[in-house]
């Protein structure tokens, strides 16, 4: 039942920091966030951690556990052996504010760059008609809880600060796919995905899909179909010729 676990938790701020060792009690059924809370209540009252719902629905408590991007609230202690050291560090792709809390404003900036849902102009509220099978594709992407673990793990920006400007990241490329597949959206999403939001950076290694706590198939269902649509539009020789001849 209850045992004492060894934890290493990264503490510090933008300037400096390092791993701190803790011995802490663990009880049956607990998750890593419970242990972090126990540290706050008993050993480190000012340990900074972001969290809200503690039920895997809000996507606030993202961090890296033994180097893997995870939600603290959905990682059960029973996935570790009792003698295993559990190392908790902040997400690496975003600047540290303090301890486990990072500055995720990159994501909110990217969100604002994606043009919003554009319904047909003359369609009145209450008159929207869509089939379940047609909304399901976008609904899968709308399961996203914006934990930003996919953004954190994507190698395009994880070790390449210089790519952040031109690359929206998996979460927001998926947002483009969601709007593209919305049965009633009228805006052109395909060309801007490639030209303005950096879809071409993605080389479909599926790391984003692997870390998604909602199990959204980001690569297979959002990014690859968008790449196919880009290829159809941009590289199909007949479309290319048509564009050349009839461009206004």
């Amino acid at each position, binding site marked *: 039942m209850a045992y004492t676990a060894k934890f290493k938790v990264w503490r510090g701020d933008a300037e400096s920091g390092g791993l701190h060792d803790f011995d802490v009690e663990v009880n049956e059924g607990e998750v890593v966030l419970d242990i972090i809370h126990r540290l706050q209540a008993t050993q480190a*009252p000012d340990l*900074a951690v972001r969290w*809200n719902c503690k*039920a895997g629905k809000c996507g*606030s408590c993202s961090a890296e556990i033994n180097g893997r991007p995870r939600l603290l609230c959905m990682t059960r202690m029973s996935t570790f052996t009792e003698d295993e050291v559990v190392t908790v560090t902040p997400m690496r792709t975003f600047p540290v*504010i303090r301890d486990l809390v990072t500055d995720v404003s990159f994501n909110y900036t990217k969100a604002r760059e994606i043009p919003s*849902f554009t319904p047909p102009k003359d369609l009145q509220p209450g008159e*929207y008609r869509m089939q379940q099978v047609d*909304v399901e594709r976008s609904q899968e992407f*709308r399961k996203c809880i914006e934990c930003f673990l996919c953004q954190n793990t994507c190698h395009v920006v994880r070790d390449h600060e210089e790519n952040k400007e031109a690359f929206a990241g998996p979460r927001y490329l998926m947002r483009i796919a969601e709007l593209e597949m919305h049965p009633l959206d009228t805006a052109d999403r395909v060309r801007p995905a490639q030209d303005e939001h950096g879809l071409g950076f993605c080389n479909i290694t599926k790391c984003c899909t692997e870390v998604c706590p909602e199990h959204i198939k980001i690569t297979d269902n959002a990014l690859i179909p968008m790449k196919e649509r880009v290829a159809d539009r941009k590289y199909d020789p007949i479309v290319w010729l048509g564009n050349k001849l009839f461009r206004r």
Partner: protein
Amino acid sequence: MTEVERHPYDVVVIGAGGAGLRAVIEARERGLRVAVVCKSLFGKAHTVMAEGGCAASMGNANANDNWQVHFRDTMRGGKFLNNWRMAELHAKEAPDRVWELETYGALFDRTPDGRISQRNFGGHTYPRLAHVGDRTGLELIRTMQQKIVSLQQEDHAEFGDYEHRIKVFAECTVTELIKDGDRIAGAFGYWRESGRFVLFEAPAVVLATGGIGKSFKVTSNSWEYTGDGHALALRAGATLINMEFVQFHPTGMVWPPSVKGILVTEGVRGDGGVLKNSDGKRFMFEYIPDVFKGQYADAPEEADRWYTDQENNRRTPDLLPRDEVARAINSEVKAGRGSPHGGVFLDIASRLPAEEIKRRLPSMYHQFKELADVDITAEPMEVGPTCHYVMGGIEVDPDTAAASVPGLFAAGECSGGMHGSNRLGGNSLSDLLVFGRRAGLGAADYVQSLSDRPSVAQSDVDAAAQSALAPFNPTDTAENPYTLHNELQQAMNDLVGIIRKAEEIEQAIDKLQALRVRINEVTVEGHRQFNPGWHLALDLRNMLLVSECVARAALLRTESRGGHTRDDFPQMDSQWRNTLLVCSASGDGLVPEVRVEPKEQEPMRQDLLELFELPELEKYYTDAELAAHPGRTS
């Protein structure tokens, strides 16, 4: 003089859940400059936890539905203590608010003919809840978040600045409302990240801060739910009503201990799940109260037929209003017929095929699998009551959402009246859309009607800063905020919980009095930068103030009704039906003194009263109140 950033706005919305965001959208559409302040990141508010759906009588699933039926269901659910005007506006406007979300990009589940699908829920006569699987709250918050982004994009196109008219102040907590004379002049708070102070200078403040669940030990609520709006309003001179009514959701997880209280959606029962005790018996048939006799099936055979044929069968008592189901579960556990971990069984596995369960209830499947190692398609869940929602809140004008303090508005869970003594599932999401919009409108009208702007006095800013920094002062006993919070939660849970009696409530009030003294001694370590100990020390004051309102009102109401059950007064008393208990606060100090006084509610408008049959009204009303009913006069 305190160093503070100053931000002038027309309207400051405190809270970025559904009600807050809807208020922002409305005030911005009226051309005002709006700040939205949230304790968490943008888009993380507690609204994401709402699972089942949003009630609106669109009539897509059953054409017999209309606002009158929804109004009647809401009043019955609240045991006729609701503010009838709010219930009326809510029932009438909810469909428009849902359809509007589709124009923002929401994608609800569909009917075969392509309209918004609607599901059954407790207390609703017809399938009425617009939903997206079991993650409807997430859809609402994301949709409105994205609508706000789209408005910011419009402002960017027009003014070259995304934040020209709407700015989100994320991870920022308001600790004090500031007045100029009797009117609102602004709000004072701190950035969580840096601990630096911030002052909003604004003639109108909309409170949309949600509930108070973190005052209870077993709760479905997140850390943010510390009654901030309730406490801010009280300290600014506004009043709270119905604080004795706290909803315990019948189905929270009970095991493992670390997830105790996490919500299990009512949608499980709406989609066919049934409650069973340790004998395997569907016990809800034994618990149909007199006021609902005749409206619910009295045997499993009829209840099961109802799922497919609602015209000729009565609904299952598994879908009685939440207060009834929570009490029933409590009784079964007390009688020794509970599950191994102190709950009862909720069985969907034997009722639907595994694939269908995963499709309709994906979050529930995921939640039990990941957190409890339970496969809900193969075995029953263990569930028990959890503190979920407070019906009580800031007393507001139904049409404008204005509180009694000029310039102060409130919407969503932190406002009171709409749900009476008990809220129906699904009425929360629709409430926050309807009244979030009305609060935004109310605030806009108020600001546009002003001839001069209020101003903030420096002395008020200094006082607010001093009070916020108090926990850093060394004290003799150096109380730990985490310890005090624990004791507060335990006391409220044990003594003012789902079943109450006078001597226990009195004990709770004594404990709260002791905590009042100790809270002055709270000390926190470290510095102001993202310091959770300090944040809790400040939130604790609000929890204590609001807990005292709950306890004192609970002691005064000597009857049982909705979310207030007195063991020593087990009956509903029609003499109490029309009485509101109004809380106000006075005095300085970290936690001001609470006063609770009874007040009569305005009688229901005649045309609304006539929507009910006389025999039903007789179960709730006194003879004197019904003297003018046509059923009595003719």
